[in-house]
């Protein structure tokens, strides 16, 4: 078990494809924070865990589909994005681009939860594709090329979405480093 902790994702993914549950569990442990974070930013915290579970279940049942091209994390994100899209379509709607009309609350004297809500609200005002592009590139550190592959869109479109989404978020959240301000 301790050996698994130091193995590369690709080695663990190969073992998982052969039905090694312990190897797959190591991958879940390693990536759940990022997958759930991505989905929470995309779909909101209430749906994130169900979608993340669906993502890992698909990754397990289709483990042999990971060919080793690109990073395992990118492959997982691609599954997560598709799970999100399927779920949204299944609900007969896309995520609302605008949540409420109350605007961003006043920024004085905020708790962590309030700050999270403000970020969530601002993200909710973006189109899902813009939101996903911003989160993948700015928050999770994927390259534009990787993000374009994950979201299955041309590179130019991806770059436009990152720029547009970032600009909108800066406009909504303010251009400041200090979340307290």
């Amino acid at each position, binding site marked *: 078990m301790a050996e698994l902790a130091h193995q590369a994702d690709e080695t663990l993914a190969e073992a998982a494809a052969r039905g090694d*549950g312990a190897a*797959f*569990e190591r991958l*879940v*442990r*390693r990536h*759940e*924070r*990022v997958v*759930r*974070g991505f989905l929470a*930013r995309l779909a909101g915290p209430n749906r994130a*865990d169900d979608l*993340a*579970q669906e993502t*890992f*279940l698909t990754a*397990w*049942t289709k483990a042999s589909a990971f060919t080793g091209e690109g990073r395992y994390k990118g492959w997982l994100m691609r599954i997560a994005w598709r799970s999100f899209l399927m779920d949204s379509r299944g609900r007969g709607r896309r995520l609302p681009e605008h949540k409420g009309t109350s605007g961003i609350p006043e920024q004085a004297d905020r708790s962590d939860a309030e700050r999270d809500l403000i*970020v969530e609200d601002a*993200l909710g005002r973006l189109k899902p594709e813009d939101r996903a592009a*911003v*989160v993948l590139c*700015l*928050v*999770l550190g994927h390259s534009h090329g990787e993000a374009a592959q994950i979201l299955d869109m041309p590179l130019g479109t991806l770059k436009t979405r990152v*720029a547009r989404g*970032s*600009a909108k*978020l*800066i*406009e909504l*959240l303010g*251009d*400041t*480093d200090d*979340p307290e301000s």
Partner: protein
Amino acid sequence: MTPNPDQLARLARRLALPEREPDEAFVARVRLARSAAGLAREAERSRREQLIVEIGGGGALLFAASQLGRIGEQAASLLAPAATSLGGLALFGLAAAMMLSTLGGEREGLA
């Protein structure tokens, strides 16, 4: 407006996911979901196998029925000429003999 790199860096810090240890409860949740999915697949396979056996059994019954039908037709084709050549009295005698033989068998069985 296209944000400059400094603005993007500041935005990234505001959107960053909090660092934390792996969530063992979620890992266990995925483990349970995998087990449940495995059991569901197993049950589905069993149902498919049972269906195949039932279809096979049904086919065998149909085959047996068709064979019996064919034997019946052959027996009828053998008996029909005899029935037409025998007179009504002879047929009545034959039926009576068969009935008596059946009754005799039943009586022996009871004794």
